[in-house]
């Protein structure tokens, strides 16, 4: 980015920027839809979503056309269902999930979050029923994404909840064995999400966001890669701090464009503007992955020594650029290594350069937990619990949010290739070293105390 080379040069820099908004998430407060009458509850939720989000798709299209900045995904999130619907059975919760799914389909949203519960201290009867409903709810719906918040730095980790969620995760995968366990990919286990991080998968509308709020998320990998490649043409031997500046500038520009689009959408929908997420999550376009940034920095492939340092530098520069661009960026910016949605990451697993252990390491150097990692179908529940617990504990220890989405693929072994349609691509089933050796630890149950 060289801003001072005259009008044409400056325009040339700006005009080539691959600007887009990866997600627009409309948060809707449905807390007052709570009703002891189950049918009134579902009807109230459905009508509220239609009333508030009915124009979202059209408005996103209008603003994208006006600004010339594409909006790639439209999402909804609502108040956590376990707060709105108390005293329901697991079967009733499944019908609530179907209500959410139908409403999201009606307004042409790609996903809806909020089928969620917070069990970091312990499980209420309603929370337990919601968790027990997850296999059926995720199997019988398309757009619903579920989340269970199991721990935080302030409150510790609920290991019993993790064990129950892991059992439901495996059950959901087996219920969709004919679709290679894709229901499991819709369930996120969260840590340090007490305020309702608006950009994590499946997350709900958190406290303090008001009745109607628009959040936007940016896929900044493309714009950063573009900037790094430009920099490489001008100075192939640029120092790392110079590269950090280049990344900051690119993120600044992406954030500014996204805020402009987000505020315009919010104004047209009569909503508050919430926050901007500059998470380095992948999109479907080639080269839109954090993996593609590494060669531009001098690391030939992800997983090679130096990967963690490079990711940490990117993470730091992204947050600095986003913070300078807007006061609405919050502290959400993270790297998402969503293997199944990221063609470059998936290719790295297939070529053997990226292992399960390296993904776990990356989670400690800027990445946001383990996301959409395919593991063998015969992985036992205790091992699943232990993997989730490890990631949650890392997050709790480091005071950062985390998401764990494990795709257990029934009938598949380590080394098998699995392919999905839609947003998800193909990936290799990754072997887990030491599987089956943690059962006695998990069986102890209880809670991990808060981190002091």
């Amino acid at each position: 980015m060289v801003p001072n080379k005259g009008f044409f040069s400056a325009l040339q820099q700006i005009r080539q920027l691959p600007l887009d908004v990866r997600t627009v998430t409309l948060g809707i407060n449905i807390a007052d839809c709570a009703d002891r009458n189950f049918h009134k509850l579902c009807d109230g939720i459905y009508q509220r979503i239609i009333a508030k989000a009915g124009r979202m798709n059209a408005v996103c299209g209008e603003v994208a056309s006006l600004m010339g900045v594409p909006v790639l995904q439209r999402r909804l999130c609502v108040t956590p269902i376990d707060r709105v619907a108390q005293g329901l059975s697991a079967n009733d919760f499944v019908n609530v999930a179907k209500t959410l799914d139908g409403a999201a389909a009606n307004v042409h949203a790609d996903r809806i979050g909020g089928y969620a519960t917070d069990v970091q201290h312990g499980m209420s009867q309603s929370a337990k029923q919601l968790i027990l409903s997850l296999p059926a709810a995720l199997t019988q719906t398309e757009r619903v994404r579920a989340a269970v918040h199991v721990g935080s730095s302030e409150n510790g980790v609920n290991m019993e909840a993790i064990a129950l969620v892991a059992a439901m995760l495996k059950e959901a995968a087996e219920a969709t064995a004919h679709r290679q366990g894709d229901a499991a990919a819709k369930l996120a286990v969260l840590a340090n999400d007490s305020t309702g991080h608006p950009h994590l998968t499946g997350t709900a509308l958190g406290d303090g966001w008001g009745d109607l709020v628009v959040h936007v998320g940016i896929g900044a990998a493309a714009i950063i890669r573009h900037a790094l490649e430009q920099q490489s043409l001008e100075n192939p031997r640029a120092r790392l701090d110079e590269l950090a500046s280049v990344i900051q500038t690119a993120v600044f520009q992406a954030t500014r464009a996204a805020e402009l689009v987000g505020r315009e959408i919010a104004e047209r929908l009569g909503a508050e503007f919430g926050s901007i997420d500059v998470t380095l999550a992948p999109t479907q376009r080639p080269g839109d992955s954090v993996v593609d940034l590494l060669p531009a920095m001098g690391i030939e492939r992800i997983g090679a020594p130096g990967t963690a340092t490079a990711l940490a530098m990117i993470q730091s520069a992204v947050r600095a650029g986003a913070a300078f661009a807007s006061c609405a960026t919050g502290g959400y910016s993270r790297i998402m290594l969503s293997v199944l949605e990221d063609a470059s990451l998936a290719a790295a697993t297939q070529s053997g350069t990226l292992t399960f252990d390296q993904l776990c390491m990356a989670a400690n150097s800027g990445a946001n937990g383990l996301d959409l990692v395919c593991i063998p179908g015969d992985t036992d529940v205790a091992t699943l619990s232990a993997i989730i617990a490890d990631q949650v504990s890392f997050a709790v220890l480091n005071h950062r949010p985390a998401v764990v989405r494990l795709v257990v693929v029934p009938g598949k072994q380590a080394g098998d290739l699995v392919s999905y349609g839609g947003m998800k691509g193909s990936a290799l089933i990754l072997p887990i070293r030491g599987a089956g050796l943690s059962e006695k630890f998990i069986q102890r149950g209880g809670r991990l105390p808060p981190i002091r």
Partner: protein
Amino acid sequence: MPKLYIMTVLAANRTGILAALANALDELGGNLRDVSQAVVHQFFAMIMAAEFPDDQSPEVIADHIGAVCRAFGANVTVVDPTLALGMEGNTEPTHKERYVLTLAGRDRPGILRFLAHRLALDGIDLVDLQGRLQDSTQTFLSAMELAVPRGVDALQLCDELRHEFQSDGITVSLQHRRVIAALAHPEPVGFNTAIP
């Protein structure tokens, strides 16, 4: 009551042309209301709207400016907008959004012709145009500001132009002025983005 004229001045681009022009305007009691100036291939070109005392005739204005700027070979035209032909159908102002369209790539005949016809189809005004051809590589970069009627889909228009020029290796970008402003200026975005 001052009277408004539209004037163009084409002259050799040498130091002092603007000073000479300003002197002439001052001596005529003129006052600039709107002006746009460019230098192309050593030629200075300016189009302006200026007010003059109502006793100044357009012939006197043109003659005086021509005389003062004679050393620069100035060619001056003065038009009374109220008498100008072709202005009767002007239905401005309708609200239009401002965009910056840029094209870059290998030069070939007919690019501007296609572009102008395509933009006219959607009622799009081309309000500013700058372009430059690099002789050594025969590549060009052109930037133009467009006034686009509401309802025109900028993404679709951009896709259409990209498709048209793709086979020639010409890249196209269309960005709203507010996006350009958001990237170029550090003030808060979205709170007060009204750009004239």
